[in-house]
C-alpha cells in the first residue's frame, strides 16, 4: 500500500525527526555487516531459547519469532500523548469491570444493552459481587495500537485477559544492546529493563487479606508445551518467583499452596497464564487439569489474588470494544484520548446488511477470536474466500464484528535488497495496582514481514522489532 504512512521516511524521501540518527546510521553501514548482525541476532535468540510453540501441530515444534534489526522509534512527544490515552483507557476498563460485576450502572444508564453483558460468554457469574484485592481487575494489560498518519493512532484491541509478548519486548532490547552498542551511545532511548521488577512490585501490592509478611508471588503456566511457556519461565525467573503448574498446587487450610521440597507453602498472588475456563475444575470446566480445584472459593474468601481477575475477558471482547468510547466517557467523564476504529456489530441488522454489501472492503473478526485466526481481510481475500466467509457471517452474525481496512503505518525492515517498508502495530504493556498505573515506554512492535501484508501475528508469520521511545 503506497498510501500508507511511513514512520521513518517522508513522502519526499527525507528522514522524519525521530529517525534522524538511526536512519543515517543504517545508511552508512556496510550491508554485509548488517546481514552478519541479523544472523548473529538469530543465533542469540536460538541460544537463549526465545521460542514459541506452534499450535495445531502434531509434533511440538519450537520456532523463533523473526526479529528485525531496524528499531522502531517513537518521539517523546508522541509517547506522552499515547501514554495519557492508554492510562485513561485502562482506568476506564477497571471501572467498567467493577461496575458490571456489581451494580451495572452503565447498563442502567442505557449506555450498553443488557444482553451485551448477560449473554456474553466472557461474563463470569462467579465474579458477581466479588471485589478483588486492591480493587484491581486487570493487573496486566496490553493495548494494541495502530497508526495511520502523523497524528492518528487507533486502538485496535484491548488485551485484558493474559496479554503475552512482554518477554520479546525485553529480549529484543537486550539483543540490540549486545549487537549495536554504538547506536545506544549516540541516542537517548528510554530503558525497558525495569519491567520485571515493576511487575513484581505491582503484583505484591495487590496481596489478599490473608497474606502475612512479604507477599509470595508465583506464575501459573499450563506447562512446557504451551506456546508462551518461554515467556512464563522468563517472567518467573526475572521476578525471582516460582513457576508453578496446576499439579504443583492444592488448597490447604483455606489457602492455595504449592508443593515444595519442605511441604506445602501458601501463595498470596498468582499471576496466572491459564484461561478462566481452565482455572478451577470445580467452578469452571470440570475436565481441566491445568487449574486448581477450589481456587475460586479461596479467591472469593480473600485467600489469594488472581491476576488478572477471572472474568476480565468481557472487557476485551470485540463486541464490547465497539462501546469503548462510551465506556471511557461514562467512567472518566472525559472524551477518549485514543480513537477507536469504527466498528460494525454484525448482530445489528443494519450493520450486517452494510457489512455483507461491502465485504471486500472490510476486515471481519470473530468476537472472541485472537491471534489472527478466523478473521477475514476483505481486500486481500479471493472470491472463494469471500463467499465462504459470507456464509459463516449469515449463519452466526452475532459472532462477528467488521471494521474498515486501515492503512497501517510502515517502518522499514532490513531485507536482502536493503531497507524496505512493512506494516507494523504496537502493543504497550500496562501494570495496574493500588499504587498507580505503570506503562513501560514503548512495548512490542509486531511487523508483517511479507510485503503489503497487514497481518502482524507471530502465529501467521509476523516478526518483531525493538521499540524505542526517545528521551525528551
Amino acid at each position, binding site marked *: 500500500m503506497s498510501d500508507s504512512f511511513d514512520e521513518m521516511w517522508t513522502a519526499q524521501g527525507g528522514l522524519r525527526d525521530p529517525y534522524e540518527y538511526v536512519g543515517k546510521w543504517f545508511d552508512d553501514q556496510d550491508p554485509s555487516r548488517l546481514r552478519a548482525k541479523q544472523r548473529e541476532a538469530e543465533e542469540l535468540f*536460538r*541460544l*537463549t*531459547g526465545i521460542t514459541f510453540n506452534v499450535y495445531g501441530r502434531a509434533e511440538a515444534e519450537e520456532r523463533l519469532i523473526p526479529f528485525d534489526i531496524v528499531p522502531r522509534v517513537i518521539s517523546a512527544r508522541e509517547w506522552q500523548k499515547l501514554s495519557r490515552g492508554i492510562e485513561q483507557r485502562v482506568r476506564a476498563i477497571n471501572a467498567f469491570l467493577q461496575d458490571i460485576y456489581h451494580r451495572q450502572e452503565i447498563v442502567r444508564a442505557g449506555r450498553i444493552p443488557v444482553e451485551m453483558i448477560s449473554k456474553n460468554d466472557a461474563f463470569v457469574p462467579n465474579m458477581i459481587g466479588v471485589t478483588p484485592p486492591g480493587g484491581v481487575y486487570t493487573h496486566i494489560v496490553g493495548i494494541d495500537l495502530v497508526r495511520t498518519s502523523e497524528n492518528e493512532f487507533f486502538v485496535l484491541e484491548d488485551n485484558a485477559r493474559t496479554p503475552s509478548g512482554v518477554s520479546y519486548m525485553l529480549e529484543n532490547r537486550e539483543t540490540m544492546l549486545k549487537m549495536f552498542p554504538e547506536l545506544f551511545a549516540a541516542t537517548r532511548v528510554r530503558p525497558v529493563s525495569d519491567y520485571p521488577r515493576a511487575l513484581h512490585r505491582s503484583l505484591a501490592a495487590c496481596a489478599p487479606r490473608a497474606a502475612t509478611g512479604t507477599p509470595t508471588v508465583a506464575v501459573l503456566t499450563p506447562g*512446557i508445551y504451551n506456546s508462551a*511457556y518461554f515467556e512464563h*519461565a*522468563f517472567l*518467573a*525467573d526475572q521476578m525471582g*518467583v*516460582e*513457576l*508453578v*503448574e496446576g*499439579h*504443583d498446587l492444592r488448597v490447604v487450610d483455606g489457602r492455595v499452596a*504449592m*508443593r*515444595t*521440597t*519442605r*511441604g506445602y507453602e501458601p501463595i498470596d498472588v498468582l499471576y496466572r497464564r491459564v484461561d478462566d475456563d481452565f482455572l478451577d475444575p470445580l467452578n469452571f470446566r470440570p475436565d481441566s487439569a491445568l487449574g486448581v480445584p477450589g481456587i475460586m472459593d479461596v479467591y472469593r474468601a480473600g485467600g489469594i489474588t488472581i491476576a488478572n481477575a477471572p472474568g476480565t475477558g468481557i472487557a476485551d471482547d470485540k463486541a464490547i470494544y465497539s462501546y469503548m468510547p462510551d465506556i471511557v466517557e461514562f467512567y472518566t467523564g472525559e472524551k477518549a484520548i485514543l480513537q477507536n476504529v469504527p466498528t460494525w456489530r454484525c448482530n445489528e441488522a443494519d450493520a450486517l446488511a452494510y457489512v455483507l454489501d461491502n465485504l471486500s472492503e472490510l476486515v471481519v473478526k470473530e468476537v472472541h477470536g485472537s491471534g489472527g485466526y478466523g478473521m477475514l481481510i476483505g481486500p486481500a481475500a479471493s472470491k472463494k474466500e469471500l463467499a465462504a466467509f459470507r456464509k459463516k457471517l449469515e449463519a452466526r452474525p452475532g459472532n462477528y464484528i467488521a471494521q474498515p481496512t486501515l492503512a497501517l503505518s510502515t517502518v522499514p525492515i532490513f531485507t536482502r535488497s536493503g531497507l524496505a517498508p512493512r506494516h507494523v502495530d504496537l502493543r504497550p504493556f500496562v501494570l495496574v495496582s493500588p499504587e498507580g498505573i505503570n506503562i513501560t515506554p514503548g512495548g512490542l512492535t509486531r511487523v508483517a514481514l511479507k510485503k503489503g501484508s497487514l497481518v502482524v501475528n507471530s502465529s501467521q508469520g509476523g516478526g518483531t522489532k525493538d521499540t524505542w521511545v526517545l528521551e525528551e
Partner: protein
Amino acid sequence: MLGKTAGGLFWMYRYLERAENASRLIETGQRIALTRAGNSDDEWASVLRTAGVHDGYVQKHDKIAKETAIDWMLRDADNPSSVLASVEKARSNARLVRTALTHDVWEAVNGWYMDMKEALARKVGERDLPKVLGLIRQNHGLVRGATQGTMLRNDIYDFTRIGTFIERADNTGRILDVKYYVLLPTAFSVGSNLDNVQWETILRSVSGGGGFRMVYGQDSGPREIAQFLILDRRMPRSLNFCCSKVRDNLNFLSSDYARRLPSLDLAETISGRFQTHDIDAIFDYGLHEYIQDILSALRDLGRQIEIDYRFYE
C-alpha cells in the same frame, strides 16, 4: 523450592551424566574394535549391556554389529537412553526448571542440544565419530563448568549434585557388573593378553587409565583395579567417591532444612560400607554380589529421595 523443580534438577543432571557416560562407552568399544582382530561384536554386546540398552537393541536387530550398535547408542529413535534422547530429556527438564538455573547453565544445555540436533541428525560415519564423541564431552564440560562457576551453593545445587553422582555411581557399578569376571583372581588367566585388554577397557570406560597408573603404577592387576573403582577416595568415578558425594549433599539439605529424612540414613549406610570393607573382604564376599547389592541400594536411595523431597504428587 518446588518439589517438581527438585525432581527436574535431579533428572536433568542424571541425563547429562548419562549422555557423557554413553559416549565414553562407545569410545571404549570403538577402541577395542580397532585394536583387536576378530570378535569385537562380543565387546559391543557388553557395551550395550553396560549402558542398559541391550534388551531394546536385540528387539530391533537380529545381530550385534558395530555400526548398528553405535547408531543405537548415539541416536536411534527407539532407544530412550541414546545420547540424543538423554540430551533432549536433559534439556526438557532444564526448560521445566528454567527459573532455578542461571542463564549460563541454561545456554550451555541449550547449546549442547543444538549441537546434538545437528551432529546426530543422520548416521555418524566412522570418520566423524571421534569428533562427535568429543563434542559430547566438550559440551558436558561446558554445562559442568557453568554449573560450578555460576550456581548458588544452595538446595538447588544439592539436587544437581545428587542427580549427577547417583547416575555416575550407577554407571561405574554397571561397568563392574558386566565385567566383574575379568577382575576375579583365577590362576588360569592372570597376566594373559586377553586380561590386559579387558582391564584397559574397564579403565578407559571411566577415563581412569592415567589416574590409575599414577596411583598404582604400571604393573598392577585386577585387585587394584577393583580397589580403584570401588573404594578409592580420590577417583571421581569410584563408587565410594560418588556415594559419599550423594551423602554429603543429602547432609547439606538436611541441615539446610533442619530436618533429617530417611534418604540420608540410606545414603549413610551405603557410603558407610566403603569405609568398613577392604578390597579383600569384598572379593571374599563375592565381587558380583557386592556390586549388585550396591546397585540395588542405589535404586532404593533414588526412590527414597523422590519421596522425601516430594518430586511428584
